[in-house]
């Protein structure tokens, strides 16, 4: 088997080398967010460089500025990026505004099948209009919002006994959102090893997408829907349903009663900092960070464990992750497509996962050893089975900022009720869709 793998990598390299002989060596620039998986991709791409003769350059932008920076680049027809690993919500704008190259003909010609990738990732990262076989990206990095916790604290007898006494239940990974809150409240302002710790780090950031990604992690398990009928934009009764109101009130209670002080504008970085500094017992964040967290010398290894976003009325996780697209303004489309072909290969995908990237390829995800390959691998599969994403419309930025405002106003700034926040959100979104000519 090992010989077979080596042989197939050899054949692949030979094929890439042959292709590169036909096209001249190019300097390609790949744009993405600056985070752990991006570093892994730099390492992985060295194989492509040696096989193809092309040189890879990288433009990584910190998450808070990623959308602004990259969408400005696309909207101005910039040539900075030949390849872009763009957020899932950009696919509508990327396709309709002509920023991304449509990949159907290329996939057909090269024998790349979307059936080889996890359906949820193809739907979310590649297709526009949603669910149709029109592909503008190859699933590059599967991701969802999950949880991690201080396993060493959860296993301590004194803490377990205190929890049992306080709640009458055993302390363990929560099986529901309400149990999650109960555990977080138990740890809130608790003295552990002479230090005051807090319940959990959740997303409350106002400027980009933070609080929306956090709040939807409560909304989806409660059964939140964007529309009553998909594609009809009939939001009344869906966005502001009784379940949605309850979920939003729940998120506010979580923020008020179980997070560290001053946690008013926090996202990925703050969540990681709070956990690594031993400030919180649990934290939400994207699966993409989990390999780094597990490897952390102070709070990783035996001290950490992971769980999927707990259900309430149903299973539900907030989708993250991205697809890789060829930017239509690039002068090096041929070489960029070569990269995508190389990246889609199962062997490369297997290596991608082994280096810390989240492959969406079925050969990796359905492999016999996948679930045991990392302590969070099984949770990742579970999460990806039940992911939901935000609107992916071309006007997604307006839709997102409206939700950021309404949710932050209610959860953090105590303005109005959950019902009012969601009613106003429908008004905002209706106005956007009217402007778009969709209502």
């Amino acid at each position, binding site marked *: 088997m090992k010989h077979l793998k080596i042989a197939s990598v050899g054949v692949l390299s030979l094929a890439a080398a042959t292709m590169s002989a036909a096209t001249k060596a190019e300097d390609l620039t790949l744009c993405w967010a600056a985070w752990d998986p991006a570093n892994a991709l730099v390492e992985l791409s060295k194989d492509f460089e040696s096989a193809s003769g092309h040189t890879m350059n990288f433009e990584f932008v910190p998450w808070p500025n990623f959308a602004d920076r990259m969408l400005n680049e696309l909207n101005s027809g910039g040539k900075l990026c030949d390849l872009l690993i763009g957020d899932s919500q950009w696919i509508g704008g990327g396709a309709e505004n002509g920023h991304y190259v449509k990949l159907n003909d290329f996939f057909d010609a090269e024998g790349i099948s979307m059936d080889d990738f996890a359906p949820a990732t193809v739907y979310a990262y590649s297709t526009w209009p949603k669910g149709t076989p029109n592909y503008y990206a190859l699933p590059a990095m599967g991701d969802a919002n999950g949880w991690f916790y201080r396993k060493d604290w959860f296993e301590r007898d004194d803490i377990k006994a205190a929890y049992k006494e306080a709640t009458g239940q055993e302390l363990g990974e929560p099986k529901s959102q309400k149990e999650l809150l109960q555990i977080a409240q138990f740890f809130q302002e608790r003295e552990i090893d002479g230090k005051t710790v807090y319940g959990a780090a959740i997303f409350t950031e*106002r400027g980009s997408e933070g609080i929306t990604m956090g709040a939807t992690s409560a909304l989806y398990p409660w059964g939140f829907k964007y529309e009553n009928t998909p594609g009809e934009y009939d939001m009344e009764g869906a966005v502001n349903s009784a379940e949605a109101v309850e979920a939003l009130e729940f998120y506010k209670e979580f923020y008020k009663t179980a997070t560290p002080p001053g946690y008013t504008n926090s996202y990925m970085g703050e969540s990681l900092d709070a956990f690594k500094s031993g400030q919180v017992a649990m934290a939400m964040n994207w699966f993409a960070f989990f390999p780094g967290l597990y490897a952390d010398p102070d709070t990783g290894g035996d001290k950490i464990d992971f769980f999927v976003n707990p259900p309430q009325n149903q299973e539900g996780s907030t989708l993250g992750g991205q697809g890789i697209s060829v930017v239509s303004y690039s002068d090096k489309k041929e070489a960029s497509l070569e990269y995508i072909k190389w990246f889609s290969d199962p062997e490369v995908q297997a290596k991608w996962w082994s280096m810390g990237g989240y492959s969406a390829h079925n050969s990796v995800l359905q492999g016999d050893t996948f679930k045991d390959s990392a302590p969070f691998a099984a949770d990742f599969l579970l999460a990806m089975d039940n992911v939901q994403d935000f609107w992916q419309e071309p006007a997604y930025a307006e839709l997102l900022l409206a939700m950021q*405002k309404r949710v932050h106003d209610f959860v953090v700034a105590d303005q109005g009720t959950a019902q009012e926040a969601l009613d106003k959100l429908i008004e905002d979104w209706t106005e956007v869709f009217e402007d778009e000519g969709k209502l």
Partner: protein
Amino acid sequence: MSDSTADKLAQKTPRRVARKIKGLSDRAIAWLFVGPTIFLLLAVNIFPLLWTINLSFTNFKANRINREVKYIGLRNYERILGDSDIWLSMQATAHFLFWTLFFQVLIGFALAWLINRKFRGNDLWTTIIVLPMMLSPAVVGNFWTFLYQPQIGLFNYIITFFTGADPSSFEMLGSVDLAPWAIVIVDTWMWTPFVMLICLAGLRSIPDYIYEAAEIDRASKLRQFFTITIPMVLPFLMLAILFRGIENFKMFDLVVQLTGGGPGSITEMASINLKREAFEKWRTGYSSAFAIILFVTVFGLASIYVKALNKVKER
């Protein structure tokens, strides 16, 4: 023939150019000199302004260049003026503007008055006081974020030291009630020295003989202050208010660093709102209309103010 530098330079004018200029009137030569400046002004100020006015009547979105652009009359203006969120951002701007000007004028004038007195280390203190305004607003915003941190921040620690309150019990940047004051404090800390310097210039411009005459007339110190110092410093003070007022009306960087407009939208100034509409939501037509409204507001208020300033100067 004179040997002045100007003459020497004039003699160096190439003959071909000299011949061409020779026939030009003074007026034409004046236009020749100011022409490039006027062209630059038209290109970078007037044309964009006119273009913005044009865009403000459309539904244009800069990120949707393929979409048909429609003229929608005054609809953008109607939406803005009827939008309660816009009025909240104007309210936040007004709160910030009023209180920063109030504190900066009060403290700035008091500091200038103290510094104007001759004492040992006068220059050193002046240098120390003006340090904050030399820093970048982004840097100031960042380190005040740490100072305001409820668990490790120095600000909360000092309040705790004096009041005994638990430092984690209040959040300067996270509380709806405190966040508007948190940004006022930082702006006041940073820009009071500017007001102080202008007031100091005003105080030092008052001739000593006026005070000496007042002393001879047996005017009390208080009377001297209100009848000599204040009226003579007033034009300087009003100039400082004008500069700070215009700056703070368009305040952006400091507040974005400190609160990002939050919590919720409590500290979302008009400029932050405008940036979100223009470059995050990409509602170019709508944001153009908003920019025009803000421009007219600042321009109108500044014009009235300058007239008042001129009247004070004439007195």
